[in-house]
């Protein structure tokens, strides 16, 4: 009986290890850059990418499009309504977008989306929540602006007045 129990425990642990490694395999993050550098290698494969959601969420029939930025590379991701509701922050001026991890099928030329390069998301997870950034205003620029403003107010009417007077003289000559 003890032997059977021991075997069962070992088998359970072993199966857990296999499951975990399988899960790790699936969640191994593929840099978006490799999808562009070796496009056909990943075409039709299930993979996971990670990046910042930027811009807007765009409706497309029953699904939605988001764009993910990973370094200098971007990929369009098709998500469903539930996944859309997960996203809180979209990367824009003054806003760092949510960093999401997306698992799904990559298409080099998606037959459903008129040949677009995309990922159809199966899972979407917020890895790091986005946030609003504090705007920094440089005081020296305000001072330079004020000085330029004063200079402009002084010279502007004077230069234009002179311009007209001299211009009339020039024409008379």
């Amino acid at each position, binding site marked *: 009986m003890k032997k059977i129990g021991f075997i069962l425990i070992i088998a359970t642990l072993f199966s857990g290890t296999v499951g975990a490694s399988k899960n790790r395999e699936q969640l191994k993050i593929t840099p978006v850059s490799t999808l*562009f*550098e070796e*496009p056909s290698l990943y075409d039709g494969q299930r993979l996971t990418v990670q990046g910042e959601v*930027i*811009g*807007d*969420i*765009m*409706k*497309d029939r029953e699904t*939605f*499009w988001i*764009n993910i*930025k990973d370094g200098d590379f*971007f990929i*369009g991701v098709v998500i469903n309504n539930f996944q859309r509701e997960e996203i809180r922050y979209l*990367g*824009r*001026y*003054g*806003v760092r977008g949510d960093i999401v991890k997306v698992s799904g099928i990559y298409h*080099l*030329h*998606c*037959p459903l*989306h*008129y*040949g*677009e*390069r*995309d990922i159809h998301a199966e899972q979407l997870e917020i890895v790091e929540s986005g946030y609003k950034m504090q*705007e*920094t*205003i*440089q005081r020296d*620029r*305000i001072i*330079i*602006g004020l000085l*330029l*403003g004063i*200079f*402009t107010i002084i*010279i*502007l009417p*004077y*230069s*234009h007045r*002179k*311009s*007209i*007077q*001299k*211009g009339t003289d*020039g*024409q008379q000559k």
Partner: protein
Amino acid sequence: MIPYFSREDVGPILHYLGKMIEGIGVLMFVPFFIGVLNGEWGPSIDFILSSLFSIALGSVFLFIFREEKDLNWRQGMSVVTLCWIVVMFLGALPLYLSGHYLSYLDASFEAMSALATTGLVVVNDLDHMSYACNFWRHFMCFIGGQGIILVALTFFVRGGSAFKVYVGEAREERIMPNIIQTARFIWLVSLTYLVIGSAILFSINLWRGFSPGRALFHAICLFMAGWDTAGFAPQSQNILYYHSYLIDLATAMFCLLGAVNFGVHYAVWTGKPRELLKNYELKLYVASILITFFIVCIGFKAPLPFPNFISFFRESFYQLISAHTGVGYSNIDTHNFSYWSPLAILGLIIAMGLGGSSTSTSGGIKILRIGILLKGIKKEVKIFTSPGATVVVEKFHHIRDIIIEDNHIKMAAIITLLYIALYLAGGMIGVFYGYPFLPALFESVSAAANVGLSMGITSPFMPAGLKLTYIIEMWMGRLEFFSIFVFFSFLLSLKSSE
């Protein structure tokens, strides 16, 4: 004999330049207000600072060079040439202050690309740029596409000087008898289409779930850059960002409209729609699009890397329209060109090199010149095959019936040769910097013909020498050489008179 420039020419040139500089400073108030409306205080300060600097500089010029008199031809050409360089440097100032550019050279590159309606970009992290700064990029496309000089003509320049500076900016046709009326008509057409086009794009964006503010911002920016054949977009991915065939369709339509001669627009607007069927340049343009698309099609070898014909058509035809109209919008990533064959890429290069219609916002050799050259060849063949005393007359319809004269052929041939030389020179410099010939030629033609499509060479990290090369190509391509040549002869004559 070509009259020499003298020091007396300097005053009027710099006087008018001062007016233009002040003008650009005033225009910077538009992005300033956009910044204020969106609570972007940092960028708003950058714009007010840049604006005041420009107005102050312009005022200093006007204060020192007070003499206002009508410009002669060489002065007019010099004003245009200098104006584009100075406006580039001033337009780059708020861009540089935004922190999205690695150097002032990069900001200047982007400013020239916008003003010359090219669309090549070296911006960093565009997706986090302020609305004010992003709007300025697109607004510069609109100012440059309409013509900096055209803007000035409407507000500042009077009398006999007007036509001289108008021609200097690569526009020869007077659509209306008076040049100021012509400038105002071009504005009327552009602003009308701006309202209609922006409304269409706004509706699409709104329907797709954009907030009203962002839908409007994207619509106006996309229209300004599309109509003026610049090809900038508010996001890094360009048109690909939208993942929408409706946006593809709408922008392609605006590209085509922008690449049509303003004279044809005028004819249609004044109740002469038959001009669309009779116009020689337009007919040739359609033929050229079909021929270059055929080259692109045969360039794709079977098996096609697309799941269906629509995908193939969407990718290939959109890039072709974008190339031929000189817009440079792209609904693909630059990496997609890796599976385009050299022949398909050559098809795009030819389309870019030929460009759109004359007196439109697109660049390149221009279809009318190709048409004149074809007519010239036909005329020469007829002369050779006709009896000695026969008088051979070739004519075509372009707004009115025009008889081909030797002078037309000579001018068309000179400009065409200059463009080809510029394309090749830029390509060779690209090769010198270690890039393969075809991408280097592609990028060079894209810059000189003011298109903006890229095979990946243009980036913030390309050599500074190449950035400078493309700036010069964009400048020369936009002004169509002659005003620049006149300006350099001015500089040389000043030196020789010392």
